[in-house]
C-alpha cells in the first residue's frame, strides 16, 4: 500500500527503484525500439515491453518503472505515453493491472498536458528527468536568470506541474488524483483505430490516421537530429513558434502576409485583395492547418447564377462577432464591432464583462453601440435585470473555446475605474471568473438557468455556448431538451482571453468535429428543428462559412478576423495590457493608436458574404436554409499525399444522418418554454398599478416548489419602463406562504419586496438586482429557525444589488460572486462568499469550510460564537480583523432590520447585548480591496 505525489524527483525515483521491504520490489523496463526504419520495428518494441511487463508482475514485482533513458544511435525511444498506455491496457486485459504500480521515467515529459496524459492513461507517478536536467543545465549556463539555485528551480517546476494538474483535474470535474488515474478523459486525433484499440483502449478517435509505422517515422525524424551519423549533427534546437509566429517556426494562417491583405482590402474596399487573402488562407495543399483544409466541395446539384442566390442582406443577420469582453479589449475596439454589427443587422456580443448602460442610447448619427448578445458567464459580471432586458439574445457561456472548463482572468492593471464600474468590481483588483457556473452542475440546472433567463427577458433567444469536444453532440441534445433556442459550438481556436498555455494548446477540438457531431446527433434525436445551431472558431473566409453551413450550422460567429480588420496584428499580448494597436488594452495612451472603423468591419462581412454567395451559386443553393447540413456536398480532398495524413478518414465527419420524414435540418419551430403557467402572471396583474402609476401595491399568494423563478417577469416589466433605476423602495410588496421553488426572486429589481413565510429551494435571490427578499419559517412550525435550513444551495449567486434577510440557515456556496447585495443569514454551508467582489454578508451563525475563497471585494461579518471560524476561512485573499466603529453602525443597522423583518431570535439576543456580542464578530476583509479602499481614501485627501 503506497501513495506518492505524482511527480517524483530524481532522488525519489532512485529510492523506489532500489526499494526492498521484504515484500515490495521494483523492476525497471526499457522503452526502446530498433531505429532501423523498418516496418514493424515499433510494434516489436511494444510487444516486447508488454511481455516483459507481464513477466515482471508474475515474478512478483509491485512496481514497474518504464524508462526511456537508455536510447542510443541504434535504438530510439518509444514515446512514454504510448509505452505507458500500452502496458496499462495490456495488464488490464491480463487481469494483472491491479497488482502493480507504473512509474514513468520519461525524457519526453515537460509540460502539464504530458503529465495529465500519462496519469490519465494509468501512470502512478512520473519522473521528468530530462526536464529537471534541462533546468539544472540552463541554470548552470546562465540561461535561466534567477536568484534561485537549481534545486529551488526544480522544486518550483514540480510545484507548477502539480498545480497545473490540479487545475486539469478540477476542470474535468474530478477531485482526486486517484480518480483521474486511468480515467482517460481524452480524445485522440489522427491515430488509426488499430493503434487506439490496442494501446489506448476505449478512447474516442474519430478520423483515423497514423499507424505505428508512421508514428515510428516521426520519432525517427527527431532521433536522427540527435544521433545523425553522416551529416554533422544539427547544432541548435528547432525554433517552435507554436505560441507565437516566428520566422523559421511553425506555420500560422494569420501571418504577416494574410494580416496585411485582410487589413488593406477592408480599408481600401478592395475585393480583389480580399480574394487574394482568402486564397492564401483557403489553399492549404502544402500546409494543412485545419480539418476544413482537407475538404473539397463536391456539388450535388447544378450550379445557378449568383443572382438566384438570396441577397446578402438576408444573410447578414446570421453573423455574430465573438464574445470578447470590454476589459479584455478596449472600449474603442468593442464599440466599433457593435456599431458595425448593428449597421449590418448582425449581432455583436458583450463578452462576460457586463455593458456600460450608456451604450443603450443611440448615437446622434443613428448608430448604436448596444450589443445584441449579452453573455451570462460564470462570474455574472454586471448581469442585472436591466442588462438582461437590453438583449436580443442571452448567451450562457458553458465553456470558452480556447479554455474549456476554465474561468477567465482579468489582470488588475486592466481593471480601471470604468471597467470596475461595468463589472461591479473594485478598480485595480484583478478579477477571476470561477471555472464553473455555480448554478450549473447538471443538465437540469442548466434547464433552470434557461428558464430564469427566459423569465428575465421573454423576447430574447437563449443561446448556450458549448465547446467542441467528443460528446458535445450529446450535450447539445440535452441542451435542446433543456429548451435552449440556440446552441453554439465553439472551436478550440480563438479568444483574447488569458489562460494557461497548456489549455490554449491542448484543450478543446476543432469546430468541424463538434459541429458535425452536434448536427448528426440532433437529427438522430429529431431535435434539430427546435434549435438554431451556430458555429465559431477562426472562421476567416466565405469558404469556411460555407463548410460550416454544410456541416450543419445556420449561423456563424467570427471573432479574430474581425479584430484583425480593426487593427489587431496578432501580437498575442492581450493578457499583458500592452497591445500596441489599442485593441486589447485599457492603457489610455495605447488606446489612442486604435485605427479601427465600423466601415471596415462592415466591409469585411460584405466580402465574406459575397464569397459565400459565390460558393452557394456554384453548389446550387438558393438559400442558406437549403444548404444547412447538406454534407454530401463535401468530400475529402484527393490531393492529400503527405505520409502523415494520407491515412486520415473523415467519413464519420462527412456522414449524413438520414432524417426521418418531417424532421427538419434547420430550426423551424420555436421551443415551448412552458411560460404560460408561471405564478408571475398573477403577480404581474397585481403589480399593474405600481408599474403604470408607481402606486404602492400589496398582495398575498400561496406558493409551492413547482412555482419557480418568482418575481422575475414582474421585474423585467418594471425594468422595461424604469430602466436601471427601478421603482422606489417597497412599491411592490408581495407576501407568500409555502415552499418557494428554485430561483425565488431571481434578477428581481428595485422597488420589489418578496416576503416568504415558509422555505425556499436553490438559487434564492440569484442575480438579485435591487429587490428586497425576506424569508422566515412558517409561524406554526415548532422547530428552532436558526438550527434548521430554510433556503437551498447557491443563494444570491451573482447578486449585484438589493438586500436579503434570511431567518434560518442556507446551503452551500452562499453569495458566491456577490458584487453588491447586502445579506443577513443565520448560518451557511461550505464555500460561502466565494469570489465575492462587493456587498456585505452578515452571517449570524456557523459557516462551512472554505469561506471567502477568491474573495476580492466586499465585506463579510461572521458571528463566531464557537470561536473556530479561522479554521473554516480560506485566508489566501482575506484578512480577519475586529469590526471598527464604522462597521459597528452598519452591523447594528442590518441586524436591527433583520429582527424587524423576520422576528429573528438571534438578532434579538445580539441587539439586547450588542456591546458584548460585538466582540464575537469577525470581519472578513479582502486584502486587495482594503488596499484599493485606502488608496481611494488617500486620493480623496489629496484632492481636498
Amino acid at each position, binding site marked *: 500500500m503506497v501513495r506518492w505525489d505524482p511527480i517524483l524527483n530524481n532522488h525519489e525515483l532512485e529510492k523506489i527503484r532500489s526499494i526492498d521491504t521484504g515484500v515490495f520490489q521494483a523492476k525497471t523496463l526499457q522503452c526502446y525500439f530498433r531505429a532501423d526504419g523498418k516496418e514493424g520495428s515499433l510494434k516489436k518494441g511494444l510487444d516486447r515491453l508488454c511481455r516483459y511487463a507481464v513477466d515482471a508482475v508474475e515474478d512478483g514485482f509491485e512496481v514497474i518503472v518504464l524508462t526511456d533513458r537508455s536510447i542510443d544511435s541504434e535504438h530510439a525511444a518509444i514515446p512514454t505515453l504510448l509505452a505507458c498506455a500500452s502496458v496499462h491496457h495490456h495488464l488490464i486485459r491480463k487481469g494483472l493491472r491491479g497488482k502493480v504500480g507504473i512509474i514513468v521515467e520519461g525524457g519526453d515529459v515537460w509540460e502539464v498536458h504530458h503529465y495529465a496524459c500519462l496519469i490519465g492513461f494509468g501512470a502512478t507517478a512520473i519522473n521528468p528527468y530530462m526536464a529537471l536536467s534541462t533546468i539544472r543545465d540552463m541554470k548552470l549556463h546562465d540561461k535561466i536568470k534567477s536568484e534561485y539555485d537549481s534545486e529551488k528551480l526544480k522544486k518550483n517546476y514540480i510545484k507548477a506541474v502539480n498545480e497545473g494538474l490540479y487545475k486539469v483535474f478540477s476542470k474535468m470535474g474530478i477531485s482526486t488524483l486517484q480518480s483521474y488515474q*486511468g480515467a482517460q478523459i481524452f480524445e485522440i486525433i489522427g491515430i488509426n483505430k488499430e493503434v487506439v484499440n490496442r494501446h489506448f483502449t476505449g478512447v474516442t478517435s474519430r478520423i483515423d490516421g497514423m499507424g505505428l509505422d508512421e508514428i515510428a517515422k516521426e520519432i525517427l525524424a527527431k532521433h536522427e537530429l*540527435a544521433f545523425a551519423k553522416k551529416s554533422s549533427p544539427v547544432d541548435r534546437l528547432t525554433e517552435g513558434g507554436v505560441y507565437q509566429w516566428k520566422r523559421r517556426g511553425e506555420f500560422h494562417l494569420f501571418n504577416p502576409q494574410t494580416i496585411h491583405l485582410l487589413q488593406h482590402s477592408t480599408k481600401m474596399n478592395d475585393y480583389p485583395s480580399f480574394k487574394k487573402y482568402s486564397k492564401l488562407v483557403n489553399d492549404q495543399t502544402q500546409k494543412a492547418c*485545419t480539418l476544413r483544409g482537407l475538404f473539397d466541395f463536391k456539388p450535388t446539384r447544378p450550379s445557378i447564377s449568383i443572382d438566384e442566390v438570396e441577397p446578402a442582406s438576408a444573410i447578414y443577420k446570421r453573423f455574430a462577432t465573438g464574445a470578447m469582453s470590454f476589459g479584455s479589449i478596449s472600449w474603442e475596439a468593442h464599440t466599433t464591432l457593435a456599431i458595425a454589427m448593428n449597421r449590418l443587422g448582425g449581432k455583436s456580443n458583450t463578452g462576460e464583462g457586463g455593458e456600460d448602460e450608456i451604450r443603450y442610447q443611440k448615437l446622434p448619427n443613428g448608430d448604436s453601440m448596444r450589443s445584441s448578445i449579452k453573455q451570462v458567464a460564470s462570474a455574472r459580471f454586471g448581469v442585472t435585470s436591466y442588462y438582461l432586458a437590453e438583449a436580443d439574445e442571452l448567451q450562457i457561456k458553458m465553456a470558452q473555446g480556447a479554455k474549456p472548463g476554465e474561468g477567465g482572468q482579468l489582470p488588475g492593471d486592466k481593471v480601471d475605474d470604468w471597467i470596475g464600474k461595468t463589472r461591479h468590481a473594485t478598480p485595480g483588483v484583478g478579477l477571476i471568473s470561477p471555472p464553473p457556473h455555480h448554478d450549473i452542475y447538471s443538465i437540469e440546472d442548466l434547464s433552470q438557468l434557461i428558464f430564469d433567463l427566459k423569465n428575465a427577458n421573454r423576447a430574447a433567444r437563449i443561446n448556450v455556448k458549448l465547446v467542441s469536444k467528443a460528446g458535445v453532440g450529446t450535450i447539445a441534445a440535452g441542451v435542446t431538451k433543456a429548451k435552449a433556442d440556440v446552441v453554439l459550438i465553439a472551436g478550440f481556436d480563438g479568444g483574447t482571453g488569458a489562460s494557461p498555455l497548456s489549455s490554449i494548446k491542448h484543450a478543446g477540438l476543432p469546430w468541424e468535429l463538434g459541429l458535425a457531431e452536434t448536427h448528426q446527433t440532433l437529427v438522430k434525436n429529431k431535435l434539430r428543428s427546435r434549435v438554431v445551431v451556430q458555429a465559431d472558431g477562426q472562421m476567416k473566409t466565405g469558404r469556411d462559412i460555407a463548410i460550416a453551413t454544410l456541416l450543419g450550422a445556420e449561423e456563424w460567429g467570427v471573432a479574430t478576423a474581425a479584430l484583425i480588420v480593426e487593427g489587431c496584428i496578432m501580437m498575442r499580448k492581450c493578457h499583458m495590457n500592452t497591445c500596441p494597436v489599442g485593441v486589447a488594452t485599457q492603457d489610455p495612451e495605447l488606446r489612442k493608436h486604435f485605427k479601427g472603423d465600423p466601415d471596415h468591419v462592415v466591409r469585411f462581412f460584405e466580402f465574406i458574404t459575397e464569397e459565400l454567395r459565390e460558393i452557394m451559386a456554384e453548389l446550387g443553393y438558393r438559400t442558406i436554409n437549403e444548404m444547412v447540413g447538406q454534407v454530401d456536398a463535401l468530400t475529402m480532398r484527393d490531393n492529400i499525399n503527405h505520409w502523415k495524413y494520407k491515412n486520415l478518414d473523415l467519413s464519420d465527419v462527412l456522414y449524413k444522418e438520414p432524417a426521418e420524414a418531417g424532421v427538419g435540418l434547420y430550426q423551424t419551430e420555436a421551443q415551448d418554454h412552458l411560460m404560460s403557467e408561471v405564478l408571475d402572471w398573477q403577480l404581474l396583474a397585481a403589480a399593474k398599478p405600481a408599474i403604470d402609476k408607481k402606486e404602492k401595491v400589496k398582495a398575498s399568494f400561496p406558493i409551492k416548489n413547482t412555482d419557480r423563478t418568482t418575481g422575475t417577469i414582474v421585474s423585467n416589466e418594471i425594468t422595461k419602463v424604469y430602466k436601471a433605476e427601478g421603482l422606489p423602495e417597497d412599491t411592490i410588496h408581495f407576501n407568500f406562504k409555502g415552499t418557494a421553488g428554485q430561483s425565488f426572486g431571481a434578477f428581481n429589481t428595485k422597488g420589489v419586496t418578496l416576503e416568504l413565510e415558509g422555505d425556499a429551494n436553490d438559487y434564492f435571490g440569484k442575480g438579485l438586482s435591487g429587490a428586497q427578499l425576506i424569508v422566515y419559517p412558517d409561524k406554526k412550525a415548532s422547530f428552532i429557525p436558526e438550527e434548521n435550513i430554510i433556503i437551498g444551495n447557491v443563494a444570491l449567486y451573482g447578486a449585484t444589488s438589493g438586500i436579503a434577510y434570511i431567518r434560518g440557515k442556507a446551503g*452551500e456556496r452562499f453569495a458566491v460572486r456577490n458584487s453588491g447585495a447586502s445579506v443577513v443569514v443565520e448560518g451557511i*454551508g461550505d464555500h460561502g462568499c466565494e469570489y465575492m467582489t462587493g456587498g456585505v454578508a452578515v452571517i449570524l451563525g456557523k459557516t462551512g469550510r472554505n469561506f471567502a475563497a477568491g474573495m476580492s471585494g466586499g465585506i463579510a461579518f461572521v458571528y463566531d460564537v464557537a470561536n473556530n471560524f479561522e479554521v473554516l476561512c480560506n485566508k489566501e485573499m482575506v484578512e480577519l480583523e475586529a469590526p471598527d466603529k464604522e462597521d459597528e453602525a452598519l452591523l447594528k443597522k442590518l441586524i436591527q432590520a433583520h429582527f424587524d423583518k423576520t422576528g429573528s431570535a438571534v438578532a434579538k439576543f445580539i441587539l439586547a447585548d450588542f456591546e458584548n456580542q460585538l466582540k464575537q464578530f469577525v470581519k472578513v476583509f479582502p486584502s486587495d480591496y482594503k488596499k484599493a479602499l485606502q488608496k481611494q481614501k488617500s486620493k480623496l485627501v489629496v484632492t481636498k
Partner: protein
Amino acid sequence: MTKKEQLGLYDPAYEHDACGIGFVANIKGVKSHQNVIDGLTILENMEHRGACGCEINTGDGAGIMIQIPHEFFFDELLQQGIHLPDLNEYGVGFIFFPSDTSMVTACKEIFARAAEKLGIEIIGYRKVPVNRDTIGPSALSVEPRMEQVFLKKPDHISDPEDFERKLFVLKNYASHTINNSIKKEAIGFYMASLSQRVLVYKGQLTSHQVREYFPDLSDKRVVSAFGLVHSRFATNTFPSWKLAQPFRYIAHNGEINTLQGNLNWLRSNESSFFSPYFSKEELEMILPVVTAGQSDSACLDNMIELLTLSGRSLPHVMMMLIPEAWDGNELMDPVKKAFYEFHAAFMEPWDGPASISFTNGKIIGATLDRNGLRPSRYCVTNDDRVIMASETGVLPLDPSTIIEKGRLQPGKMFVVDMEAGKIISDTDLKQNICAQQPYADWLNKYKIRLEELPEPRIQFTHLEHDQIFKYQKAFGYTKEDLENIITPMATDGKEPIGSMGSYFKQPRIREN
C-alpha cells in the same frame, strides 16, 4: 445499441443523465399505502427536474421503489391458483421481456434452467397490468412486456442474506445468458429488480405517468414503509425503458466523471475476485459485473450491488465509492481518516456531482458527493416520517408537524434504520463503521512512506551539457519549450499564461 446508431460521430458512450430524486419513509418501518401515494406525489412535484423527449408525452424515465407488498401479491396469485409462501420466504423479480411472444418463451426457458442450476424453485409469473392511454408513441414503440416472477427460498438457506446473494447470481447469470444466446444482439431482457425485500416499478415515463401506467400502485393493498422515486433527464430522445431509475439499490442524481477509469480498474480486477460469500462458480456466473450499454448511474448500481452483497453494509459501500474529502482535512477524526485512506488503496472514488438515495429494504438513506454539488433537503415530522428529496416542499405537510428541516452536507450521509426504528446521524453511523476494523493499525503496518525509504543503492547521475542537448533533440524539445514553458515554471512556480488561442491542436495534421 444497434449498428445504425453508431454511424457518424455520435457515440452512446457520451450519454449523461440527471434528475430529481426523493423518498418518504416511516422511521419505525410501519408499512402503509399512503407512503406509496406520497412517493408518487413527490415524483410528480419534481416533474420540472426530468425531461421529455421529442414528444411531450414520452418521458425520459421515472419510477418508484417500494417494499414487497405481500398481502397484495398473495391475493393476486391466489386468483391464479398459486399459493405464495410467507413474506421473507420468497423473492420477487420485476422483468422486462421483449415484446415478441416467441422470445418470451425462450427467455423463460433459459431463466428456468438458470434457477434450477442454483437450486431455486420458480413459484410462478404474474403479468403486470399496465395502462397505456397517455404514453407517447416513441415510448410505446419499444415498450417491454412486464411480468413479475416469484421465486421460493430454498429450504436449506436460513440466512436471508444468503438468499439475496443467490438471487443476485441468478439475475446476472440469467440476464447475461439470455441476452447472449437467443439472438446475436441483446434482445432486451432486463430485470428491474430481484429481491425478497424490494420491488421497482419504472419505465420510459414522465413523472405523472407512473401512477397511471401502473394501476398496481393505486391498489390499497400495495403497502410499503417507504417510497423511493426518481425522475430522469437524459441527453437523448432514444427510448430505453431499462435506464429509468430507481435501480436495484440506488436512485442517482448527478454524473460520474471518472466512469471509464472506474470500469477499467474493475475489469482488471474481476478475474482475481474471491469472496467467502460466493463459490468460485457463482463468482463466474456473476461476471461481468457491469454490462455494456448502460448509463453511469446503472454502472454505479452494479458496483454497489456487488460490494454490499459481498459482505459490507450499504453505508460502508457508499463511503468507499463516494468518500468525503479526507486527504489533507485537518478537522477529520483520525479514525475516520484511516478508514478512507485504507479503502483508497484499492478503491478509487467514483467521482462527480452526486446525490444518491439508497436502500436495501431495511435501511434507507442518502449521501452527497464531497463538494455538495447536488441538492438534498430533508425534513422529519412528529409522526415518524422522513421526507428527503432534491427539493424541499415536494410533499405538502402541515407545518406544525415538522420537527426538523435539514440538508445533506458535502460528503455526509443520512440513514433511517427502519428495523431499529431510528434515524442514524452521519457521525454515529461513520464512527460505528470505522471502528469495525483496526484500519489505522493496518495502515501503519503496510504503508510505505517515501521519505522513510532507505537511501538508494545507486544515486542519480547528472547528465552533462552535451548529453542533455542530444536528448533534447531526440525528444523534440524546441527553443520555445525551454524558454516559454520550462523557464517560467521553474522561476515562478506557475504555468505560463497566453492568449489569442492556437491553431495547433492537431499535431498529427500539421507538417514538420
